[in-house]
């Protein structure tokens, strides 16, 4: 059977087509989801894509969190539905309290689009199993509010529970403890500021490369779903 992976489009989503393309590239079935539909169309996993939902004028992800589709995603996530929030999607997950902490304005205040070197810290999630711990990868970031922040207690807890899934090797924005992505305790919900869906093709991925280090995010989930 093939896995159905949904990608939500909010008004203002930008990288939804890219997430759908990445899903298709690894051989899963991409399913477009609309923010107004509470129905998840029987998908096996959900990706909240990058972009500027509702313009992100208030706070990134603040308004998207209240859309009908998010009620279903939140309920599903609590039941174990794999959810990956990329960039704006990560912000939505934090605003929804599916993940702790918040993403605030970058240290330098500017929007940054850059290929970042990351170290994978945890493979114990639905979305990172195909990496190895300590693996160094290159994935682009592009955001203005990507600086992860949380209180010390939360940060300690994330570390202790192995829920930091990736760290920046050259922290671009002042993220606490170089955190680029985290998971919930169950490992089904992952939030990541860098964009793995923009590192899936030799033609369009980071240059000079490696260009396709983002693929394992998508192969990881596919393998888990197919195995299930």
């Amino acid at each position: 059977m093939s896995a159905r992976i949904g990608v939500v489009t909010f008004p203002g989503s930008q990288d939804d087509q890219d997430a759908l393309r990445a899903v298709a590239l690894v051989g899963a079935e991409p399913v477009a989801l609309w923010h107004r539909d509470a129905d998840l169309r029987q998908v096996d996993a959900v990706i909240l894509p990058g972009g500027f939902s509702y313009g992100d004028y208030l706070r990134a992800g603040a308004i998207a969190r209240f859309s009908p589709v998010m009620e279903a995603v939140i309920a599903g996530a609590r039941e174990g539905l794999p959810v990956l929030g990329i960039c704006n999607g990560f912000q939505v997950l934090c605003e929804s309290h599916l993940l702790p902490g918040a993403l605030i304005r970058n240290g330098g205040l500017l929007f940054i689009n850059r290929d970042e070197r990351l170290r994978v810290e945890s493979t114990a999630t639905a979305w990172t199993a195909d990496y190895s711990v300590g693996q160094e990868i290159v994935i682009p970031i592009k955001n203005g509010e990507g600086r992860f922040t949380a209180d010390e207690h939360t940060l300690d807890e994330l570390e202790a529970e192995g829920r930091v899934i990736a760290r920046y090797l050259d922290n671009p924005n002042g993220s606490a403890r170089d955190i680029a992505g985290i998971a919930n305790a169950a490992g089904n919900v992952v939030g990541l500021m860098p964009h793995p869906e923009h590192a899936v093709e030799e033609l369009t991925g980071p240059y000079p490369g490696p260009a396709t280090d983002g693929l394992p995010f998508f192969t990881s989930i596919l393998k888990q779903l197919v195995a299930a």
Partner: protein
Amino acid sequence: MARVVVDVMLKPEILDPQGQAVQRALPRLGFDGIVDVRQGKRFEIELDGPANDAALARAREIAEKLLANTVIEQYEVRFDGAVDSATAAPAAATSTSAERTAG
């Protein structure tokens, strides 16, 4: 018609890069002796109905639910004293209520 102001500021323990950028810029512009700058958001909300406690409670709910992310921000809700004109009376004069929550 009730006019309510909601001030949203980062909690003191949260780093404020925007405020810091302002503070760093000030000496270069010739402003010295600035000890601290914090930058937050101000919302002016007009609600139907009278300017009573119920209006304030509604605004507070909006702030709690939407305007502030209480993981990192705190907010304050109060009636807007300043009237609708560009030359303003002191904002303080007609304020009748204010409160701040640490979220």
